[in-house]
């Protein structure tokens, strides 16, 4: 088991390295750098000025060297410009050669400096992740129990009226992406035309003061899309368990139906949904980006959109590292959890 986890961590690191390199390569293509130079310097710069601006700040070094600088294995680039300004990869605005470190990379715990927000990347990502973590917490609180209940109720009597209604409900939710359900919810519950002003159409105020009124719609929008899928998986697993031999034995012994469901079927039926819930995290991440944009909630997804839209290289890299680790760690947890929940499977 230890070896398995160790190997998985190795693969995870390798994946993260490859992915960050891809992100690094794509954000460092020349047209992207040109855009960065123009937004940071001056929109009306000529081609030569753009090149000089980029050259002075070390953006035109070979990609591998720049990647090494970001990782912290090659020394940072510094240069003193003709007008006495001191610039470089490790230099914060207004920095001097004395207070600038030689190596500044991820290995040194330095995530870089965001060109959009004019702040340390580490603190931005931390703050935004906090906001998103709060959102995700409530999404999970709403989504997981509802999905499991819907799935178990639908699966315990296959083909019954309850099953058909709940299955229709879960198909409809899987067919409704966040930007559709979000728009419909905003239209119904917040607009002045319909008149049901139950909720607020934006969640901007929810960052400081989350209430049911301004926070429920974003949570519901993300939760609904993921819910259908988990419910369908739970239903499939529940129907499979309900046809198993030991359930029939219990029935023949005369155990009541509610006891069969609660005591015999439920535990085995919940093994598969556990993996599904864990593997839903990458999709939830997508939902977070859409919903945060739609409801103007300034979390992790919102930061991703800002960073990508402005080619903020270091912020984008930090965001991709975080999201890749979220994806990979949830995969790892689902694998390990599956082994613990299902004693029939052993990792060799």
């Amino acid at each position: 088991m230890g070896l398995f986890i160790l190997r998985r961590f190795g693969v995870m690191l390798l994946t993260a390295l490859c992915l960050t390199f891809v992100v690094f390569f794509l954000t460092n293509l020349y047209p992207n750098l040109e855009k960065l130079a123009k937004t940071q310097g001056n929109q009306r710069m000529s081609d030569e000025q753009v090149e000089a601006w980029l050259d002075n700040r070390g953006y035109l070094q070979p990609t591998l060297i720049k990647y090494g600088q970001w990782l912290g294995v090659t020394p940072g680039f510094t240069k003193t410009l003709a007008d006495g300004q001191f610039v470089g990869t490790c230099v914060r605005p207004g920095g001097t050669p004395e207070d600038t470190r030689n190596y500044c990379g991820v290995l040194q715990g330095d995530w870089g400096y965001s060109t959009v927000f004019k702040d340390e990347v580490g603190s931005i990502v931390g703050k935004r992740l906090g906001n998103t973590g709060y959102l995700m917490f409530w999404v999970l609180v709403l989504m997981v129990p509802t999905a499991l209940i819907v799935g178990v109720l639908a699966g315990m009597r296959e083909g019954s009226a309850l099953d058909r209604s709940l299955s229709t409900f879960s198909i409809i939710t899987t067919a409704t992406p966040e930007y559709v359900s979000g728009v419909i919810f905003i239209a119904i519950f917040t607009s002045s035309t319909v008149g049901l002003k139950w909720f607020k159409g934006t969640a901007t105020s929810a960052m400081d003061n989350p209430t049911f009124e301004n926070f429920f719609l974003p949570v519901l929008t993300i939760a609904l899309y993921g819910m259908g899928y988990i419910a369908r998986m739970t239903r499939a697993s529940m129907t499979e368990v309900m046809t198993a031999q030991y359930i029939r034995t219990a029935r023949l012994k005369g155990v009541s139906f509610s006891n069969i469901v609660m005591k015999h079927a439920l535990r085995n039926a919940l093994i598969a949904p556990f993996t599904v819930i864990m593997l839903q995290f990458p999709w939830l991440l997508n939902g977070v980006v859409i919903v945060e944009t739609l409801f103007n909630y300034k979390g992790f997804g919102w930061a991703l959109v800002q960073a990508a839209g402005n080619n903020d290289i270091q912020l984008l890299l930090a965001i991709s590292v975080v999201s890749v680790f979220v994806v990979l760690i949830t995969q790892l947890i689902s694998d390990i959890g599956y082994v613990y929940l299902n004693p029939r499977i052993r990792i060799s």
Partner: protein
Amino acid sequence: MEPLSWTGSIAFLNPLLMIALGLMILSIVVWILTSIFLPETPMTVNPDGTLTSGSGLRNTVQMALRYSFLASVAISVAYIVLGIILGTGAGIIGAISQQFLPVWVSLIILYAMSIAFKRRLGLYGKLFDSPIGMIGFGLVMFWVFTGIFGALDLIVTHDPLVQVSGMKNKVPGTPLPNVEDGEYAWYLLGGDNLARDVFSRMVKGAWIVVQIAPLATLFAFMVGITLGLPAGYYGGRLDTFLSFLANLILAFPVILLFYLLVTPEIVATGVPNYMAAVLFVFPILFIGVLLNSRYYTRPKFRTPLLIGVLGVAIWLYLSLISTGGYIINTDAYRIWGLPTYLDLFDIPGGILVVFVSVVFVNSPTVFRIVRGLALDIKTRDYVAAAQTRGEGPWYIMLWEILPNARGPLIVDFCLRIGYTTILLGTLGFFGLGLPPESPDWGSTINEGRKLLSIYLHPALPPALALLSLVLGLNLLADGLREESLKD
């Protein structure tokens, strides 16, 4: 011109529909409750071996549900039929159903033909045995026909890009201020914030989805199958390597990938063209290997067949990836492609990058599914029999394993078209790829959401259209799964 109301002269149907819908909802609730609380109706076996079920409360409720459902459907059909006859006399609904006339006709012909010949049509025919599959197929074909006829300018009432002054954010059914001859006099679903017709934009948006989504899914399947079969069949190093690559792409959040790939800056570097050049090779490889592995024992037939098929495929491939005589045309350097007089069609850079990135995002998942299926099927006896016969590995993969994996693959194909539609909408929602004035559903939703708290009508039609198409594909997949499990 008078503004149109929603139902016009057929308003007498509204209370009827309300009653029917109310009864249906009520009977659904009662149906669920009775199924939980009442015992199942006892069945009695008659002396001749037939079964008689008692007429308990449950059956009554089921009857009520069936009749109220039929009544709702009948009234909805009445709306459409009266609408087709009365046109704008029957308000917005009438005008819209009249505009959709070609779609209704084609749907009726399609269904009549399919049901008449359903026993000879294999799996497709069996679809018409399952009500869920029929509803799903109907929704899907509705949008397919809408897309096709919309592209032929049959359904649209106005040019989706033309702005009419005075129509900004007008509610549905508003008449145009100065109607010229031959111009449609109303904005059926209102105007958006640039005074364009919402209805026509929704119809034109269907064409973009209907064009891109199935084709992109098909390409993703070609890539996934061509790589997934050998990975599952051979295993070993190849499998480890390909699975690592697939997991690498899957670990990317889709939106981050889109933001990195689908920007004008990336298009300027020619990266999408390289990716297109690589990804679009796979269908050619697939077709080539497929035919060669089957017919290599008959070289006299195989060689001309391969030359013909691959010639056409490569020609299509080259015209697909080359634009204006170049495969890659950036400021720094260019690579020659097919000369323009041989180039069949040009794909605008925006569409190409959307297409490529959607294929790129979908293919690793297909790869994993195919690999899993291949791992499972390669242990079967018929594969062992083929190996004993001395068949080549590619013959076994493509002509033994693949046909036996078709059931799950067809179901996943339907689901994946729906997912691709969602992805296209996501791209439009973030304003990536397609030009901002493009009428695709995602972009329209994105534009409409900005004024959503005041004007609902620009954002809701495309949102509901996308919802119904994806729902249709999901139901279709469910119906197919059900029917394919039966045999």
